[in-house]
């Protein structure tokens, strides 16, 4: 080295301080480390515990993505999905928020929310986009964290965090229990049914249900639930009725409830209620608990009749006390003596329906029925419905029943003795009626009727019948001809000539005592008139007979009528043709002839001389004339009345009336003569 040596420099002690040996830059990694450690510690201290949920399946659950939510707020994240020992369940590890951890205690419930499309709507739609999540629900009391929970397969009832009364519903045998169906009260949804499951006995279906507060106050031990799903259609005396509560209930089912009587007590959570198929059954249940143990009896019916079915009614005195729970055939040669198949019906009888003590069970009911059977109670098949032919089992008292009571030792059930069935077999009766109708000789009857019609038409078409009107007309014509005969016509003329002769006779009586004779002659004339009257009186008789005949004809068969009618006409013909009828005018003229003869004799007797002597008696006789006339008038009035009686009888009667009118005219002439004599008795004498 050529350079001048540098000045001596101060030599520091070899040992340097730590601060000098260590660079300040180490602060940065130290700070980084401190920050990292701080963050790590913070995150570790703030992270919550690990929750382990077990599910049947973990469909859609992904570690690091699937969230745990409480009231739709994320409170945790799935950290891992693994299997439990034995691979029977999926374990989902969820890192829970520290704050909520104490609340996740024994009552916490977890389930997976997945999109669901049901009749009641779409739920969990948000999970379609965001993926599924696990929902948890727990109460507001921190009771300590419990790490292991069993996840529910379905959302619990109080999924919305609403509190309420939890009850258990058991479906009656014929009531439907729809899962997730709403519980509706007067149209408001106040609760929900949970998952239905078989009850422990394996015969009924049970489901948890919740009635949310504050509606849960309405539930008491007197509350009855019934099914309102679907719709009911009934036809009764009040008409047809369709009943359904809401469209949602129609599709998805639903139940409602009502506290039908007062006096119920508050119920504990988890109380068991029966779900009835309809309101009627629910209300009816108040008077008999169908939950009670039923008394099972076997009734063996001799006749194997179709129509009895399971659930058919068992009636006692018209009251339904049970139902047929099973039907079997039974063959027991040793017991019945033959190998016929008999109908063995198992009857489930509700002891409470018998009206026994409320606490009475099956043994008490059996005792009661046993006593009744000893008194004559028997089971029999009876018609339940005429329309369907359905049968029921009826317990009836038979008065002359013998035998012991219920065979209690029989297996599997005590045997109830039976009696003959009372089956109104409508279909059989109707069949019988139809068979009889079928057997009727309809064709023969129709043929006979046709033949009868033919006969009638032949009869009416016969010449005999057609001739009847002609005959009648001829009869009337004859009667008219009789009245209009010259002899009848000549009668007035003769009377007038007779009167003329009387005049002359009276003129002669002025001189002769002819008054007495005259009086006698007048009597004769009156008698003659009366005989005419009698003769005429015979005609009404004829008409009456005619009428009778006609009446008979109405009642008689036509041919008979026709023959009788012709007979009648013949007889009428004959009657008119009789000499007596013909002699009637002749008799009249004969009577007048006689009168004229008497007058002529009186004149010829020359009794004029006695006229003066007889004038007084004539006068007195003339005094009698009014009475005489009165009589004549009476006669005529009678005749007129008689004749007017024939007015109704048209035809023949009219003709007769005309005849009689002429007779009356003749009589009036006589009356005029008599009046003239009375007014002027002298004219009788003087011929004026």
């Amino acid at each position: 080295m050529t350079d001048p040596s540098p000045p001596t420099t101060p030599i520091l002690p070899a040992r340097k301080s730590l601060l000098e040996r260590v660079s300040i830059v180490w602060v940065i990694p130290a700070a980084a480390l401190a920050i990292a450690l701080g963050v790590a510690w913070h995150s570790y201290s703030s992270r919550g515990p690990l929750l382990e949920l077990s599910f049947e399946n973990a469909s859609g659950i992904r570690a690091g993505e699937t969230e745990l939510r409480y009231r739709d707020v994320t409170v945790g994240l799935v950290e891992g999905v693994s299997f439990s020992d034995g691979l029977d369940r999926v374990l989902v590890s969820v890192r829970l928020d520290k704050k909520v951890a104490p609340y996740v205690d024994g009552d916490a419930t977890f389930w997976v929310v997945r999109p669901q499309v049901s009749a009641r709507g779409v739920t969990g739609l948000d999970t379609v986009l965001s993926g599924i999540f696990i929902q948890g629900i727990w109460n507001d009391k921190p009771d300590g964290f419990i790490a292991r929970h069993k996840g529910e397969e379905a959302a619990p009832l109080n999924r919305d965090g609403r509190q309420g009364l939890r009850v258990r519903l058991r479906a009656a045998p014929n009531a439907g229990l729809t899962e997730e169906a709403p519980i509706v009260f007067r149209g408001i949804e106040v609760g929900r049914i949970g998952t239905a499951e078989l009850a422990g006995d394996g015969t009924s279906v049970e489901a948890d249900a919740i009635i949310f507060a504050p509606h849960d106050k309405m539930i008491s031990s007197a509350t009855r639930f019934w099914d309102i799903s679907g719709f009911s259609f009934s036809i009764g005396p009040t008409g047809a009725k369709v009943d359904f509560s809401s469209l949602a209930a129609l599709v998805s089912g639903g139940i409602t409830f009502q506290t039908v009587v007062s006096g119920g007590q508050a119920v504990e959570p988890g109380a068991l209620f029966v779900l009835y198929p309809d309101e009627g059954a629910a209300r009816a249940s108040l008077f008999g608990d169908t939950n009670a143990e039923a008394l099972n009896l076997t009734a063996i019916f001799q006749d194997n009749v179709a129509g009895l079915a399971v659930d058919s009614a068992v009636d006692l005195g018209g009251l339904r006390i049970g139902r047929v729970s099973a039907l079997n055939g039974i063959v027991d040669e040793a017991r019945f003596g033959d190998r016929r198949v008999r109908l063995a019906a198992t009857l489930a009888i509700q002891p409470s329906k018998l009206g026994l003590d409320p606490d009475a069970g099956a043994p008490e009911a059996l005792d009661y029925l046993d006593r009744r059977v000893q008194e004559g109670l028997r089971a029999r098949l009876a018609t339940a419905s005429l329309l369907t032919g359905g049968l029921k089992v009826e317990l009836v008292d038979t008065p002359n029943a013998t035998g012991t009571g219920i065979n209690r030792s029989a297996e599997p059930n005590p045997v109830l003795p039976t009696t003959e069935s009372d089956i109104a077999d409508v279909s059989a009766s109707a069949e019988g009626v139809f068979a009889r109708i079928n057997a009727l000789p309809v064709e023969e009857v129709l043929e006979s009727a046709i033949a009868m019609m033919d006969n009638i038409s032949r009869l009416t078409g016969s010449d005999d019948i057609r001739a009847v009107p002609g005959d009648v007309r001829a009869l009337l014509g004859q009667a008219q001809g009789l009245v209009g005969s010259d002899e009848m016509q000549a009668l007035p003329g003769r009377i007038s000539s007779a009167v003329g002769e009387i005049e002359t006779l009276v003129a002669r009586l002025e001189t002769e005592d002819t008054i007495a004779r005259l009086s006698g002659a007048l009597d004769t004339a009156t008698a003659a008139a009366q005989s005419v009257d009698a003769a005429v009186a015979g005609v009404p008789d004829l008409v009456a007979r005619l009428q009778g005949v006609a009446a008979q004809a109405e009642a008689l068969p036509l041919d008979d009528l026709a023959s009788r009618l012709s007979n009648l006409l013949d007889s009428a013909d004959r009657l008119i043709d009789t000499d007596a009828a013909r002699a009637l005018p002749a008799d009249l003229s004969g009577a007048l002839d006689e009168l004229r003869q008497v007058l002529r004799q009186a004149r010829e007797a020359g009794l004029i001389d006695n006229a003066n002597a007889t004038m007084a008696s004539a006068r007195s006789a003339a005094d009698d004339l009014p009475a005489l006339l009165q009589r004549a008038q009476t006669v005529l009035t009678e005749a007129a009345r008689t004749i007017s009686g024939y007015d109704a009888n048209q035809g023949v009667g009219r003709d007769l009336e005309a005849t009689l009118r002429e007779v009356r005219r003749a009589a009036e002439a006589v009356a005029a003569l008599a009046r003239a004599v009375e007014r002027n008795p002298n004219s009788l004498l003087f011929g004026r």
Partner: protein
Amino acid sequence: MEIAGDVTTARDMGLVACTRCTRVWPLGTHKCGRCGHRLHSRDPHAMQRVWAFWAVGLMCYVPANLAPMLRTRTLVSSQENTIVGGAAELAQHGNWGIAMVILVASVLIPVGKFIAIAGLALGLRRPGALGPARRQQLYEVVDYIGRWSMIDVFVVAILSSLVQLGAVASVSPGPASLFFALSVIFTMLSAQSFDSRRIWDIEAVAPPAAPPIPAPPVTKAHPA
């Protein structure tokens, strides 16, 4: 950089330069007589800085790979990808090229840098198989390529600003992007803290020193 022939350094000549006023002092001078700056032939804390920044870079690199780099949210799904996860996903979709670019830029280069810096730093005490010239080259490569690791951060930044389609889709940077950026920054600092002259110091010290060579008029300085 090729160094031809024997090189005489200031240190060889028993000189130390003040880094503030560049006045040259004999080796062993504690303080600069002119400006009062403390004189060091070699910064005694340089290696500490290298290791300190290296450690911070490595610390940041761990969350950078574990935390999500990119949060992609579309209408139906939201996705968070780490660096390796995103690359793997791209590879699964068939985009091998992009996957390779990401893997090289985000994994290979940073990891290589950590290894290289650590190797260089350790190599100062125990020389390995590589000669000083190779190590100098390695150092230069590390120094040059370090900044390209930021490409990942740039991609995330650009995507985040471009893909903001409201509710339909959006991309936002995850916490890893910050850590990754920090990791890159600290490794760059670490690399810059490394005094490459020391690579050559070993060569000068380790073999028995040649007789002192007359100092050249000008001290040839190695690139810092």
